[in-house]
């Protein structure tokens, strides 16, 4: 019988320097690259974002090992797509609005180096989309 080593493996990464993009192609904001022993893990994330328009979208995703978007828990549409209702007001991303996105998902991971890549983009191109700060955490919850 194996015991549940909750927290036996813990990996975390934070970033607090804003990154602004007008790109419609995803760009990477921060990466978490833990070496895991394999098993069941709880992955959680949080980031502060803005999009300087009230009629189009910010799009965010966290890509695991270059494949699936772990934020897209429903497997329907995008992991994070959001249209703000306010634009302008100045500030780093051209708007004074600050929104928060956070979530949790449970993953079964194979052993080895795993890569969680927090990416975002503007839709359409030409509008300031910004991530101001982010944190990603991975905790082993069972063998």
């Amino acid at each position: 019988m194996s015991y549940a080593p909750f927290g036996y493996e813990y990996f975390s990464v934070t970033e607090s320097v804003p990154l602004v993009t007008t790109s419609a192609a995803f760009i990477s904001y921060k990466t978490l690259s833990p070496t895991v022993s394999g098993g069941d893990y709880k992955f959680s994330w949080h980031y502060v974002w803005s999009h300087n328009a009230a009629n189009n979208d910010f799009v965010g995703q966290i890509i695991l090992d270059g494949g699936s978007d772990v934020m897209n828990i429903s497997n329907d549409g995008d992991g994070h797509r959001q249209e703000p209702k306010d634009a302008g007001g100045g500030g780093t991303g051209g708007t004074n609005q600050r929104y928060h996105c956070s979530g949790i998902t449970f993953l079964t991971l194979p052993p080895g180096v795993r890569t969680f890549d927090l990416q975002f983009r503007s839709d359409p191109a030409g509008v300031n989309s910004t991530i101001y700060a982010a944190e990603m955490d991975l905790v082993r919850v069972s063998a």
Partner: protein
Amino acid sequence: MPFPNFSISADTLNGSVDGEVLHEEIVAAGPYGGTFEGVSYIGDDLTINFDSPTPADGATVTGVVSAHAGVDALAAAKEAKFDEIDRRTDELINLGFTFGGDTFSLKQDTLPTLNGLWNARAAITYPVKYNTSDNSSFVLLNNSTDVESFYFSAVGTFRSREDSGTILKDAVRAATTVAQVDAIVDPR
């Protein structure tokens, strides 16, 4: 997922360059052989995101970005020169002013005293002893006429120091290149 495969560094850019403005300028400078996907920046570090850019694309975009870098470099050079002039002006003002052969302070913390003396010159009791900068002596002000002479001497010195800096600042303001700004030497 198209990822940026072209970037240029523009460390002299400052935060005043709005990403949306730069994006539109780069779009307007096209058409391009590759696909322009947007600009990204952290502080002064700018990345131009292109998919399959050509050398000509790189040259065009570099031209657009360099125009901003040049403007910002000139602004930065002017700001630095203004600071240099202000520092020298402050040094000269802090030497004080002379009246009756003695030197009196013009430092920031003494200006309210001077202004207070001026404002109250018709109401105060005379004579007034006013200490020199080093407190080794004093001047005796016997009436409002003495105060006015004393005050005008202070203001005259203060203004001449400021005005000599303004002449230099006019030259800095008129400069259109970094080299012209750098060539301005404070002779004071």
